[in-house]
């Protein structure tokens, strides 16, 4: 059984990382988590980003956060990617599988996944 005492090990491990990481997130992934987003399936999308970013070793440069209703409920789950000096990218009708591709192609590879963006849907 897990015990709270195990957290001490995580604490020791994280100490160095935290120092490295402070203020270093250049990219921000924001998932809409209001009623509309949650009902449309935002929870697994958020979890896919949290897990994928860590597994790809991007934790130092990508912050995954949550927000309320973005205002385009019909396109939920909506994910916005902010990067310093670049225009915001809005991904719509997201799924956990699509999240995986955004992580590898966009967050890691620097190439926007155009077919998942709002521009591709809102025609």
């Amino acid at each position: 059984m897990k015990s709270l005492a195990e957290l001490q090990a995580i604490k020791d491990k994280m100490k160095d990382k935290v120092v490295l990481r402070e203020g270093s997130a250049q990219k921000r992934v924001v998932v809409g988590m209001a009623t509309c987003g949650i009902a449309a399936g935002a929870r697994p999308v958020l979890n896919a980003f949290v897990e994928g970013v860590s597994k790809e070793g991007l934790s130092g440069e990508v912050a995954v956060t949550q927000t309320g209703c973005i205002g385009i409920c019909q396109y939920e789950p909506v994910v916005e990617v902010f990067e310093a000096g670049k225009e915001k990218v809005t991904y719509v009708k997201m799924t956990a599988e699509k999240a995986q591709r955004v992580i590898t192609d966009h967050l890691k590879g620097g190439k926007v996944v155009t077919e998942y963006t709002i521009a591709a849907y809102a025609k």
Partner: protein
Amino acid sequence: MKELSLNILDIAENSVKAKAPLTQIILTESEDLLTIEIIDNGCGMTSDIVKKVIDPFYTTRTTRKVGLGIPFFKMEAEQTGGTFEIESKAESEFPNDHGTKIKATFHKDHIDFIPLGDVVSTVTTLIQGHPDSDFLFRHVTPKGEVFLDTREIKNELGGVSLAEYEVIKWIEEYIKEQYQSI
């Protein structure tokens, strides 16, 4: 919503938005009933506002004129023959004892009962998104109990953020292990 755990996530987001230092999610199950309570010590609402929140055409959001979170949850409880209650004390009227309490009871054997679903994911999602708030989760079943309090975790972790993946993963496994052992 496809799972009641998604309603819990949605309602608890309101607590965080109400700047609640602590949000408690308490599930109590018997053979045929499930009671879900979400209790926060946030800014609360005046009695006028409380009356309005069960109306789908009332919302706090500014991007749309409808708010369906609470009406959905109420409907889902009542469609099983269950009940829904909301009580709130506004900070302006009760400076030392304010917050909101929602209690919904579901009949589990009713055909319109929506399954609870992945409540562990709801808890970890809340903590990941709001590492500075505190959450207490308790699930009481006839076989045993599952419990988590982020204040205890923060005591152990010192300054490490609860949003760190390693911490979230640990919390997920910690709760899952408790479910497996009951």
